[in-house]
């Protein structure tokens, strides 16, 4: 091994604590950065590959056949900006019933409504539909179903009772459209045959555009198409960006906060490594002098000190790389095979670029103090001891000596002024740690708020099931026997029992059905409310809650998917009947993937559907014993045919995973910040070891020594904490809306404004806690330092 190599190895081995700090800081920074960058790139890759391979449609548009002709729709292929188009295809909303049985689905089961499109072939210039099983429909009597929809296989038979002649079609294939342009495909002739005479006719048109990289570009293209047809003819549209967002939502939600942790980690790494190498140079001035007197060149000294930082940082980067890739596996798992491609994983170039960038930053951080070491004059270095020059901070010491505090505390309070640069770096490390805690706590509070508010009907403590086929909100309703089962309990009797029950505060009824909604492919679950629901409304993002018939509330994701905004109208279709609802509010909930439409029961009645509530949400009066209430209520409901149970919602696995990651990364960053403080206090204690010996010789007790050392960083900690809390809050306010946007949702303001005054006060003390914890160990070491040895140290 060369002389330089030996010096580097000896330096790394001698400063084990500092090496451990550098390993940990690099590990944390690279883990978070690999995860963030990896998820950002890898989560979208399967969709992007499939979209390119299948020439996916940038925009899928539905036209109202009552307002526009097929010829007019076809002419939109020539609208400016359109690079390719397919269609028009006749599109129908039909509710099938199984005519043949299988293990998964018996015969005679009514299925949710399907968007059935008449399409001659699977290929074409836009939306190359990929067959997963069987063959394409080539003649009447055949149907191809979308992959991942109905649990049916080729050979199964489906009857369409609402179509003329209630035809039965045979499933001949299962196919995948990358943007889900239909739930099923038939030949154009079959589509015509399935259309009810005089019933509503819809057309579907698929477009690719010259510029479709952003929502704004796609919206502009959509407006151009809408302008090319009679007003109101464009009844709905769906952008591929909305589909991609929906398909990658859970994974992409991780990216904003992981990126924030990654940036914080990298900055903290630069800071801590700068502190460590600077401290190493300061503590080894004499050693540097000896090396130079032995013939080491300035550049060799520089390389020696940069190397001492790069070796532990390299180890940390390698460990972070492994950890980041391992953590990415479960997060990326769900997007892996969704598009028929290979499983998603962190791309190799991320594994190369992120650690490489981290090492460059480390080298840069180490270079500044290493250059200082290289420039040291040999004679000065070899003669100057470790004891720092004095002079700075004298005024602070005089003033601190007059404070009405124990002398040890006064001495500690004045220490930071003697080495302002080191104090500033300590403050920065503490501030990073405190800001991270503030950010992490805020994220946890926001995720908690999202967890508790994401489900519909979570406001009440009791749910009453009135029987029948009503599934809970978000579930796919499947009614056996040819028609929806009516709730068995009489609503009036259930309501009377609830009103009579001691402890009942308020209640409302819920009915639901699946219908077709304009602009949305496939069935839309309509959750319809009856009675007093203002208290049970989900968290509103904009607009207002329902206060009359003909109104609806949906999520941001629904609005984006349908290409509409609050104030617009959505047309609901069921077995040829139509009902229009006006969107009066935008809410936040993730039930039914956030694609449910909330309205009053009168909307279901207008569609000819049974609007009898199948469930009731109940709020009990404050102080009510829930167990007793349920026992008593169930006794009253039993004769009516309803059952009450506690309203418990299952936690989201994604949020649990996020919480775990936030907690882990916060702890890692705080540990690094604390170790940064520890490192500077160790350096400081070493520099002052002689003074320490003097003080101990004069009778400074161990607890006084600990108090002095801890106090030397306590003031810095308090100050840094006070500065860091607003920074952490600002970071939280910046990142959380991005997390919402990543999943196609707008988070309610109340879920973002989660910091309360007591929490902020406690967080402001976080800096003090980090500083004290970081200083405690060196303070104990200082207290245990042998006085006689310390007195001999110069």
């Amino acid at each position, binding site marked *: 091994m060369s002389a330089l190599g030996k010096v580097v190895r000896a330096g790394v081995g001698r400063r084990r604590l500092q090496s451990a700090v550098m390993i940990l800081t690099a590990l944390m920074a690279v883990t978070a950065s690999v995860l963030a960058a990896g998820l950002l790139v890898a989560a979208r890759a399967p969709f992007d590959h499939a979209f390119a391979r299948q020439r996916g449609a940038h925009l899928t548009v539905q036209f109202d056949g009552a307002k526009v002709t097929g010829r007019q729709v076809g002419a939109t292929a020539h609208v400016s900006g359109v690079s390719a188009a397919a269609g028009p295809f006749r599109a129908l909303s039909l509710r099938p019933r199984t005519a043949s049985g299988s293990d998964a689905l018996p015969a005679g089961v009514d299925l949710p409504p399907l968007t059935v499109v008449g399409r001659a072939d699977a290929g074409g210039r836009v939306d190359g539909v990929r067959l997963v099983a069987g063959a394409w429909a080539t003649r009447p009597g055949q149907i191809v179903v979308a992959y991942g929809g109905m649990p049916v296989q080729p050979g199964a038979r489906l009857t369409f009772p609402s179509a003329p002649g209630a035809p039965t079609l045979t499933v001949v294939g299962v196919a995948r459209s990358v943007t889900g342009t239909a739930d099923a495909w038939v030949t154009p002739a079959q589509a015509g045959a399935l259309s009810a005479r005089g019933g509503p006719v819809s057309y579907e048109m698929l477009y690719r555009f010259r510029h479709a990289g952003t929502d704004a570009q796609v919206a502009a293209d959509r407006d151009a198409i809408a302008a090319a047809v009679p007003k109101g003819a464009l009844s709905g549209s769906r952008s591929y960006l909305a589909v991609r967002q929906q398909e990658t939502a859970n994974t992409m939600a991780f990216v904003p906060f992981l990126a924030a942790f990654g940036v914080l980690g990298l900055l903290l790494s630069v800071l801590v490594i700068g502190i460590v190498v600077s401290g190493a140079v300061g503590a080894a001035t004499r050693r540097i002098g000896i090396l130079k007197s032995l013939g080491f060149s300035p550049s060799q000294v520089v390389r020696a000190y940069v190397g001492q930082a790069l070796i532990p940082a390299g180890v940390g980067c390698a460990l972070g790389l492994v950890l980041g890739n391992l953590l990415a596996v479960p997060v990326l798992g769900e997007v892996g095979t969704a598009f028929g491609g290979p499983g998603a994983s962190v791309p190799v170039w991320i594994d190369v670029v992120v650690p490489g960038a981290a090492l460059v930053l480390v080298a840069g951080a180490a270079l500044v103090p290493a250059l200082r070491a290289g420039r040291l004059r040999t004679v000065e270095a070899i003669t100057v001891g470790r004891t720092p020059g004095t002079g700075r*901070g*004298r005024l602070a010491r005089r003033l601190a000596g007059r404070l009405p505090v124990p002398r040890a505390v006064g001495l500690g309070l004045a220490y930071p002024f003697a080495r302002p640069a080191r104090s500033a770096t300590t403050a920065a490390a503490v501030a990073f740690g405190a800001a991270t805690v503030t950010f992490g706590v805020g994220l946890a509070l926001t995720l908690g708020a999202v967890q508790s508010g994401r489900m519909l009907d979570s406001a009440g403590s009791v749910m009453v099931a009135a029987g029948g086929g009503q599934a809970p909100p978000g579930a796919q309703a499947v009614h056996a026997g040819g028609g929806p089962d009516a709730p068995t309990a009489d609503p009036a009797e259930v309501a009377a029992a609830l009103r009579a029950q001691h402890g009942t505060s308020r209640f409302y009824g819920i009915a639901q059905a699946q219908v077709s909604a304009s602009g949305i492919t496939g069935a839309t679950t309509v959750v319809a409310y009856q009675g007093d629901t203002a208290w049970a409304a989900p968290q509103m993002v904009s607009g207002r809650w329902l206060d009359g018939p003909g109104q609806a509330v949906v999520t941001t994701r629904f609005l984006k998917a349908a290409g509409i905004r609050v104030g617009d109208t959505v047309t609901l279709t069921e077995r040829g009947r139509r009902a229009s609802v006006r969107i009066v509010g935008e809410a936040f909930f993730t039930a039914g993937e956030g694609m449910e439409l909330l309205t009053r029961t009168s909307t279901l009645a207008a569609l000819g559907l049974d609007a009898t509530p199948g469930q009731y949400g109940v709020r009990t009066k404050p102080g009510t014993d829930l167990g007793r209430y349920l026992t008593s209520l169930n006794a009253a409901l039993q004769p009516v045919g309803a059952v009450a149970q506690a309203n418990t919602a299952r936690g989201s696995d994604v949020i649990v995973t996020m919480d775990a990651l936030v907690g882990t990364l916060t702890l890692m960053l705080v540990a690094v910040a604390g170790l940064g403080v520890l490192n500077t206090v160790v350096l400081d204690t070493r520099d002052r070891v002689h003074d320490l010996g003097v003080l101990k010789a004069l009778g400074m007790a161990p607890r006084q020594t600990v108090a002095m050392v801890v106090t030397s960083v306590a003031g810095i900690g308090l100050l840094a904490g006070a500065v860091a809390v607003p920074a952490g809050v600002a970071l939280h306010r910046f990142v959380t809306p991005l997390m919402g946007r990543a999943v196609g949702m707008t988070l309610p303001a109340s879920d973002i404004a989660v910091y309360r005054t007591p929490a902020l006060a406690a967080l402001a003390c976080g800096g003090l806690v980090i500083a004290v914890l970081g200083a405690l160990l060196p303070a104990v070491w200082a207290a*245990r330092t*042998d006085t006689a040895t310390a*007195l001999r140290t110069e």
Partner: protein
Amino acid sequence: MPATAPVIDIRDVTRTYGEGPPALADVTLSVRAGEAVAVLGPSGSGKSTLLNLIAGLDRPSAGSVTVAGLRVDGMSEARSAEFRRTKIGMVFQFFNLLDDLTVTDNVLLPAQLAGLPRAEARRRAAGLLEHLRIDRHADAYPGRLSGGERQRVAVARALMNRPALLLADEPTGALDTASGDDVRELLAELNADGQTILLVTHDLRLAESCATRTVELVDGRVVRDTERTTAVT
């Protein structure tokens, strides 16, 4: 402490470090109140080890060390610190003043660490500085003072808590002739006023001028213990 009890009572003390020969071997020494004892000996004879054992900065491998009626050899760190605060004062070869503190603040330190009331501590410090004739430097920093003046400040600091014993480790070792004479005179005056002193030195002139007794160490053993009738001032 009984009136007749020695201020320092060292019995059969041995101190070894590792596998080497003992730094002190079977040393027994007693110092009475009012004595000024100079411990002499060449480098490596065990003088500093003896001083450290008396100051509670080190522990003997065998034997006992009693100072001002307190067993020092078995004390905890906290008790040892309290002992140093209340029973002894220390003066060092290189003064060991804290350069960032003024003369007054340096002198105040032991009293402040002992929790003496602020006004009393200030009054006592002012008296000491005046008595040692360095009161004009009260607000100066040690770096501005001569070696002799610094050592006077160190002595003032050592006497701040009115210790039973003043320990001095080569107090003239870093001083020029004039400053050395100044310190010799000061220590002799203090002893004349009744202050018990144990000093470790190479400086025979110091021993002659202010010690009432000399103890000579060679290779960790007491080879000579000589009573002097009076110190030469």
